[in-house]
């Protein structure tokens, strides 16, 4: 049987902790899904780089769960079988993940929660505040509406993420916290699987129901869905697109931002997040106490079971056309060439940089 759920909040280091950087050890990384570009493209490679810098001889074992809880559980067991010394877990479902956490700790393997706070008393946690993401999106949207001279009677449409993704609920909460009372929400949808085609149909129906001219802005929970939303608006003959939000700073999203089709996206600076996670993992595996690095300090965050988890929280960054250069490009997230493909070569943004 597993051990109790009441693991002491300051339990970091009391499991495992006998590995050494010189000899190297195995680090397991579990990411939640592949439908969103960020995990395979950024999170994993950045984490790997970070780990290699701290511990040359360490070996990274990686799995992706395709947005399925039970799959992630199988993968965790597989990593434990392979003998990892620390587990870095981006849970598909934060609450269900308590099973994984307990299983790991019963084998003296410490757990670092990555991006989403797995329950069950993990050792460390690093993330963006998902609720903050929603707030940032909402604030940007309000700002854009203000610029367009809209006030409380502005009408917006909200296209939220998957009803089966707990993150989506957090984004939605954050956005509502900011938007409620400030604007009128004419239509709101949850979108199965974050599917852009589905989002497009939702938007088309919202346009039919409300009228294209009556929509002053659209809250889109991520960039993928924003693609469908833009298409719906263009299809309805809207040339002057209302402000549309996004998230993830996908390349396609950035391209829409520079061409004026999408107002903003949220850039989650994944590199520092991944680097902090690597630092936490090495500390946990070698039995040291992680105290933050020069740039980010630690705070305590309470998880669903009431455990206080030592955490690092990184602020999500809103990116409008004015910020692209200072964020994703200067961070090396994308190069100018990647963004300014043929289709986008004659945008002001690309013209200016060339």
């Amino acid at each position: 049987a597993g051990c109790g759920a009441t693991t002491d909040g300051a339990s970091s280091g009391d499991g495992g902790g006998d590995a050494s950087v010189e000899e190297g050890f195995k680090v397991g990384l579990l990411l939640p899904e592949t439908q969103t570009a960020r995990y395979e493209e950024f999170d994993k490679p950045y984490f790997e780089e970070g780990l290699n810098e701290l511990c040359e001889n360490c070996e990274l074992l990686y799995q992706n769960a395709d947005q399925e809880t039970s799959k992630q559980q199988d993968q965790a067991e597989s990593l434990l079988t392979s003998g990892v010394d620390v587990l870095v877990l981006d849970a598909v479902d934060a609450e269900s993940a308590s099973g994984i956490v307990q299983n790991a700790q019963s084998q003296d393997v410490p757990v670092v929660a990555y991006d989403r706070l797995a329950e069950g008393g993990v050792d460390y946690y690093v993330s963006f505040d998902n609720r903050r993401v929603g707030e940032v999106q909402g604030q940007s949207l309000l700002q854009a509406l203000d610029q367009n001279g809209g006030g409380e009677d502005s009408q917006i449409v909200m296209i939220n993420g998957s009803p089966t993704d707990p993150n989506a609920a957090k984004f939605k909460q954050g956005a509502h916290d900011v938007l409620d009372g400030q604007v009128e929400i004419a239509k709101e949808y949850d979108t199965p699987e974050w599917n852009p085609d589905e989002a497009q149909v939702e938007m088309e129906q919202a346009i039919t129901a409300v009228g294209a001219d009556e929509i002053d802005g659209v809250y889109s929970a991520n960039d993928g869905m924003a693609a469908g939303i833009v298409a719906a608006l263009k299809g309805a003959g809207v040339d002057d697109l209302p402000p549309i939000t996004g998230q993830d700073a996908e390349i396609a999203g950035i391209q829409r931002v520079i061409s004026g089709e999408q107002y903003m996206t949220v850039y989650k600076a994944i590199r520092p997040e991944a680097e902090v996670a690597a630092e936490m993992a090495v500390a946990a595996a070698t039995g040291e106490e992680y105290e933050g690095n020069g740039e980010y300090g630690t705070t305590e965050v309470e998880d669903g079971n009431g455990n206080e988890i030592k955490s690092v929280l990184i602020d999500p960054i809103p990116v409008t056309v004015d910020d692209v250069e200072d964020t994703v490009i200067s961070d090396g997230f994308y190069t100018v060439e990647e963004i300014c493909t043929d289709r986008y070569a004659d945008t002001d943004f690309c013209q200016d940089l060339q």
Partner: protein
Amino acid sequence: MAQQTPVSSSEESTGATAFDRDPRLMVTRTSPASLLAALKRRIRGGELGAMPVIVGLIAICITFQLLHERFLSPQNLSNLTVQVAGVGLMTTGVIMVLLLGEIDLSIGSVAGASAAVLAVLAVRVGIPEWAAIVAAAATGLVIGIVHGTLFAKVGVPAFVVTLAGLLGWQGVQLQLLGNDGTINISDNGPIAALTHTFFVPAFGWGIAAAVVGVFVVLTFYGERRRASAGLGSMSTLEIAVRSIALAIPVFGSVYILNQYKGLPLALIIFVGFVVAFDLMLRKTRYGRMVFAVGGGAEAARRAGINVDRVRISVFALASMLSAMGGIILVSRSFSASLDTAAGEELMMGIAAAVIGGTSLFGGRGNAYSALLGGLVLGAITSGLYLLQMGTPVRFMITALVLLIAVTLDAMSRRSRRAHARGG
């Protein structure tokens, strides 16, 4: 106790009477009254054809219109026709496979993989968009040939082949779109034009007139030939009734669509494929072979039909249509992404075929199922979004309507089922 009944001479003159005058047959088709009587008998006998679906579709439309006044607006109906085109093409392919008595679980993944091929070629490789469209469709064709060959030649059940396809081609899709996740395509090239082109009113009227005209002429000519060959044929009255029954929805749709942006190219593509496949299935030797293999593969083989070739070609066509569905999806959203066609498309595509009246057991159905079934599901989705239903409710209502639509059909078919011969 021999009480012989005399052979009544009124019944028939010789033993070798032509059987189309069999006294047991209660149908004639000359007067309006007998037409109506025949209709009634068909309803009682359960031979309803597409009627239950059409009635269901109308009921759905009325319900939603009562609940939301814009449901039947030209704008919404125009959107609806474009919304259903992508999955509709996939459904047309599924119908071909269902007619064989098989199932294709890979349509979504094939559409997704082809969409990825399209975007990669058009954007990353940079070949002209029309060439990329051809290449994407060809990708579908090749995939279908692979599926068909594994099924027909190697003998792997189609369910398994296409289940493997469902996983495998999604793998390919992920691999191709790789780290980008999403590739935007131009919003004013040929790809985008597929779903964002609308024709001026006159063109719509022209098409409608042509369609109805061709139908009337061909029917009339065909029935005259039947009559002159001494076979039972439709009366002029019946031809007229049928022509009007076609003309009303055709002209009606054009009228409504012309009030918004005009006839959408996507609708023409979709309906065009449906009509083409319908003609192919009903009027050509190839179509006859497809039905024969679906109704009894061994009997077809014994009749000298190359069963393997029919099977391979059907899977090839089905995957090609899925690929085209994928192209339409890309066109609509100006982008190919990791989850293009990776969601409900598979289930909805198959559901549409079944709702439209194509049997899951092979050998019974028609291409129009794609149109009718697609419209039913599209209307439900469209209506529920207008009413802003939450996902759980939407799922449940979709399920319910799906059930009701098919229950209606099943109940009407029951009497027929009772007659079918047993194993």
